[in-house]
């Protein structure tokens, strides 16, 4: 059309771009050649000039070839000790087009270190300042280049008179462009640490970042590390955990140091509530909230010592799993230290909250004797006594599980009133967003922390909703729900002071807290969804009767060396091979076994094989 501006065609533009690239490449290559020996130069140009952009287009082979040639060459030069400013300039040229060339950064560092030794301090300062400015241009090119950030760290550390505020503002600028640039977060942490930025100022920084976009794990997390420093929980405030029966020197400051004083905590609740009311589907705020609600670390202690005269066995339960082989336990029997071998209840797991040991035969077998046992956990300076009186076949000493903190350790907020008001506001949110999974889950946790038995019905209903609104995680919710049901049942059992544990028809999918069942003699888990009795099941050292009818059990691994087990009722499960019954053979007192409704009963010769496997069983139902 007449008068129209003529524009270069795509082909022409391509051609020009190609030329531009070629020009750049020439510069790049010539810069590199300054480092290269003359022999390799000819060869390399031939290779390179056939390609358009060196590091983006060359095939892997060429890159590695060039690289190796180059490395060789730089190496030579480095060896020759050419550590002058010209080399600095040349590497700068190369790095500014490819900041991820680690070898060049190394070379540069060598040059700089060399210059440090020959130049005046002021000059060194100038050189390093120029280096920082150069790095800034590299970061503009690629804000996530490992090489550039690492080099900046190095330079900042060597700078004679570092300007940390400048570095901080650089980080701020970077983070405002991409608040998830973890290189920058890393670097910033270094700067803050070295320059000693006041914690309060850093908290203000997180305020700012969260204010501009609260979907930012880094900022919330950073906050969680700053708050305990700035507003530590005052030492005289009531401890969230129950005071131990005997004063223990292990009440170390670490268990408290990550907590925040209540006044600040209330402010944080308000902040995070604003976030999750604004956007309840953003999980970063919920995670922070979860942190605020806290997780009490239970005191490390021996929670139970059990001694059985018949088996001449001692079982010790701890507040956290220990390694049976390496735990420093000392058993004192009637004032005499005993040399015993502590072991886990099951070879499959070494870390176990329950350890057992067998006393030398005849030590306590005489029923007319009274014995006093003390178990010392020497590294934790704690111990527990247990007396086995005359005429008794067993004895134990323990803290009752009804102690409040046992299952509430999930949330450790200081005051019930705080939890109550948090529950209220979450319920308020639930009213507006009845299907929000984060809200539902938090409510469940709060309810459990407040009154696990009182809220049982509501908790179960919420779990039902959770499974419906978040079907992808329904198995997780089922497991969590199972856990809570077990906890509640343990509590009920403790209140009733019985040694019978029964959860039937509750859709249990998993077993946990089995260490709490050390003393249970009769367990009924019929009509649930259990698939296995895990190795932890072996902690039920007193178990006599096991009822698990109508489950989906395929695996009996945990029914292992249970010294008192007499009856196993396994009706309608999924035991399919004789080998699966193998663990039962380790239970010496097993008399009765009900296997009706299991695939294994269909096998030929099952009866005779079972008799061979389990000679002690007299009452076998197939």
């Amino acid at each position, binding site marked *: 059309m007449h008068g129209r501006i003529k524009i*270069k065609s795509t082909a022409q533009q391509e051609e020009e771009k*190609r030329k531009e690239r070629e020009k750049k490449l020439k510069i790049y290559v010539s810069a590199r050649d300054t480092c290269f020996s003359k022999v390799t130069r000819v060869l390399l140009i031939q290779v390179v000039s056939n390609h358009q952009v060196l590091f983006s287009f060359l095939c892997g082979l060429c890159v590695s070839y060039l690289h190796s040639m180059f490395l060789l060459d730089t190496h030579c030069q480095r060896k020759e000790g050419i550590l002058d400013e010209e080399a600095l300039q040349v590497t700068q040229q190369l790095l500014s087009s490819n900041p991820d060339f680690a070898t060049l950064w190394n070379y540069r560092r060598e040059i700089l270190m060399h210059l440090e030794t020959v130049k005046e301090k002021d000059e060194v300062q100038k050189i390093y300042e120029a280096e920082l400015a150069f790095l800034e241009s590299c970061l503009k090119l690629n804000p996530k280049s490992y090489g550039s950030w690492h080099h900046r760290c190095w330079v900042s550390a060597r700078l004679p008179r570092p300007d940390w505020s400048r570095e901080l503002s650089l980080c701020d600028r970077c983070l405002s462009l991409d608040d998830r640039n973890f290189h920058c977060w890393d670097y910033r942490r270094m700067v803050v640490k070295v320059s000693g930025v006041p914690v309060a100022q850093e908290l203000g920084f997180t305020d700012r970042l969260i204010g501009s976009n609260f979907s930012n794990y880094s900022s919330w997390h950073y906050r969680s590390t700053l708050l305990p420093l700035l507003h530590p929980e005052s030492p005289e405030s009531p401890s969230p955990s129950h005071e131990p029966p005997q004063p223990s020197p292990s009440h170390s400051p670490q268990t408290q140091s990550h907590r925040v004083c209540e006044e600040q905590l209330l402010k944080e609740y308000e902040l995070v509530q604003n976030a999750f*009311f604004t956007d309840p589907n953003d999980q970063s705020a919920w995670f922070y909230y979860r942190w605020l609600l806290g997780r009490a670390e239970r005191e490390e202690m021996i929670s139970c010592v059990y001694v059985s005269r018949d088996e001449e066995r001692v079982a010790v339960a701890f507040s956290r799993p220990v390694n049976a082989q390496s735990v420093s336990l000392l058993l004192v029997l009637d004032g005499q230290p005993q040399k015993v071998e502590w072991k886990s209840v099951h070879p499959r797991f070494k870390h176990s909250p329950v350890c057992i040991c067998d006393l030398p035969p005849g030590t306590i077998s005489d029923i007319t004797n009274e014995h006093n046992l003390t178990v010392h956990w020497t590294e934790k300076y704690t111990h527990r006594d247990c007396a086995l009186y005359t005429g008794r076949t067993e004895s134990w000493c323990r803290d009752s599980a009804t102690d409040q903190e046992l299952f509430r350790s999930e949330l450790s907020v200081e005051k019930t009133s705080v939890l109550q008001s948090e529950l209220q506001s979450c319920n308020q949110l639930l009213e507006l967003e009845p299907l929000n999974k984060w809200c539902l889950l938090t409510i469940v946790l709060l309810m459990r922390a407040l009154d696990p038995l009182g809220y049982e019905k509501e908790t179960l209903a919420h779990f039902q909703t959770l499974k419906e609104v978040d079907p992808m995680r329904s198995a997780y919710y089922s497991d969590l729900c199972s856990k809570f049901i077990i906890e509640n049942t343990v509590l009920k059992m403790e209140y009733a002071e019985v040694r019978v544990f029964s959860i039937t028809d509750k859709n249990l999918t998993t077993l946990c807290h089995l260490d709490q069942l050390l003393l249970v003699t009769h367990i009924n888990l019929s009509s649930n969804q259990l698939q296995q009795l895990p190795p932890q099941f072996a902690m039920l050292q007193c178990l006599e009767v096991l009822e698990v009818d109508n489950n989906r059990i395929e695996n009996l691994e945990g029914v292992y060396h249970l010294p008192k087990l007499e009856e196993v009722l396994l009706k309608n499960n999924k035991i399919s091979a004789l080998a699966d019954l193998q663990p039962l053979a380790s239970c010496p007192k097993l008399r009765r076994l009900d296997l009706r409704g299991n695939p294994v009963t269909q096998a030929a010769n099952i009866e005779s094989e079972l008799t061979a496997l389990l000679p002690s069983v007299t009452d076998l139902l197939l």
Partner: protein
Amino acid sequence: MAAEELPSEFDVVILGTGLPESVVAAACSRVGQRVLHLDRRSYYAANWASFTFNGLLSWIQQYQEEPQPKEVQDWSSLLDEGEELVYLSNPDSASISNLQVFCFTSEEDEEEAQSSDLPNPTEEKAVNEDTDVKPSADSNEEATTEKQETVGGAEEEQVTPTEGEEQDTDKPHLSTAQSQLEPTRKRITYAHLVKEGRRFNIDLVSKLMYSRGSLVDLLIKSNVSRYAEFKNVTRILTYRNGNVEQVPCSRADVFASRQLSVVEKRKLMRFLTSCMEETEEHQAYSGRPYLEFLCDQKLGDNLQHFLLHSIAMVTEDTPIEEGLAATRHFLRSLGRYGNTPFLFPLYGLGEIPQCFCRMCAVFGGIYCLRHSVDCLVVDKDTNRCKAVIDNRGQRISCSHFVVEDSYVGKKAAAPRRLLSRAVLITDGSVLPSDSDQQVSMVTIPPVAARYPVVKMVELCPSTMTCIPGTYLVHLTCQSAGSAYEDLAPVVTRCFHTPDSPDQENRPSVLWCVYFNMVDGSGVELEGHGLPSNVYVCSGLDSTLGHEYAIRQAELIFQKILPEEDFCPPAPNPEDIIYDGENPSTPAGEEDEDGAGEEGKREQSQTQE
């Protein structure tokens, strides 16, 4: 330029350099049309212009002068057979009316203001300076008269920079109050404003650019954006219950808001999310007011106010469809460039038409200021405009003619709607915050019954529209009365003026001007008894965005060149081939023969 003859043949002649005209000019020039773009004024952008403080003072002065009766020259000698002349109307002075200027700051030098307690010298000085600004004979008289109500119309416009009575009573009071309040703060004097006047860029229209509005889209699409810089409006405010409050509209705002309860936050977020999509619930309210729908959502007064006035920016009787559409437009624009939906061009809105003019010129458009068109040459048979005759009597033939509506204004008999405008220079923000560089959009619902909804934009110095220590405030509304009647009640509520001496905690108004502009949003593109290839660009419209002007420009362009793309991306300057220039030969192919080059070039031309 003035002495030279213009080329006598163009494809498109455009008269007026307002935003729609400039966009049409750029679009036509971009696709190869020969464009002549004229404006009778001495500055670009017509009523879309931005002025320095001194520039604005002369603009005021010009409108306050008696317009010269213009003698109509007879150009019929230039006609050929079968042609007739259609005269354009006498260029408007009617598009601006009811100009009133007030100066509330000390008009003397700082030192004097501090030393002198007597009001009398102050006033004398003020009057003297006033005469500098306004050399017409009657100025002294006016300055001492009571406040005069002006009744519109160019002839009766007047400047009343210093109301005599107010001077007497308020000035001393004002200065003592100030010195008591902030003894250390330097008061910015009128002399200072004039001295630093060049650093002001005062817009005649006050609009903002929606981040996903058609203007932003066009600037990006056409690469015109490279000629300007922009700043985000940083916050949305509203005037409510006698206070200026921040409106939480983005996610971050809602999160940070202190005036909303957490439940309100949830409700607001939920409403904003839900209204992005058309639901059955919305349809059920079809035809009923948006307010009714909001009421039924049980959002509470707070949220209802924000949603109706600040986010949708509609009135209480706006139907739901319009309300929802406005809300969606707002929300879609949110977060593209920042926490509010709006952008503002650095150096003022007057930059935008100039950017398009620049684009037009880059592609060969020819520009003449202080140059107008007197009449059209119309072919009697086809009723098409064949040429125009400029005010120097040159006949310039053209295929299309685009004209600003003020040149055909008097032919439109219908009474025109007006906009009321006020421009204030203040000494502080209406809502002080941590940062003193906030750009605020303030929505002000009717202050009383029968008053209009007012939109206020407060610009900080970093927008390059005012000097440090001051804020530039634009108020706009659809006129109910004169600009002063409409807007003064808002000004006295939000600011500290001699009329509102009790509001000492509010920012003080240093200087302000009120005027009315014609709201051209009702003007048709064609018709007006004009030939079919003459297109009329209406002036301003009352909305906040630029949608109306851009749509209009696109419509006109499509009528002129129905087959062509509207403002396709401009090529990079290095990709343009100029006449007589050899397409640069690739350095690597110097050995290639010239024939190959030639062939390539031909090929590229035929492609177009």
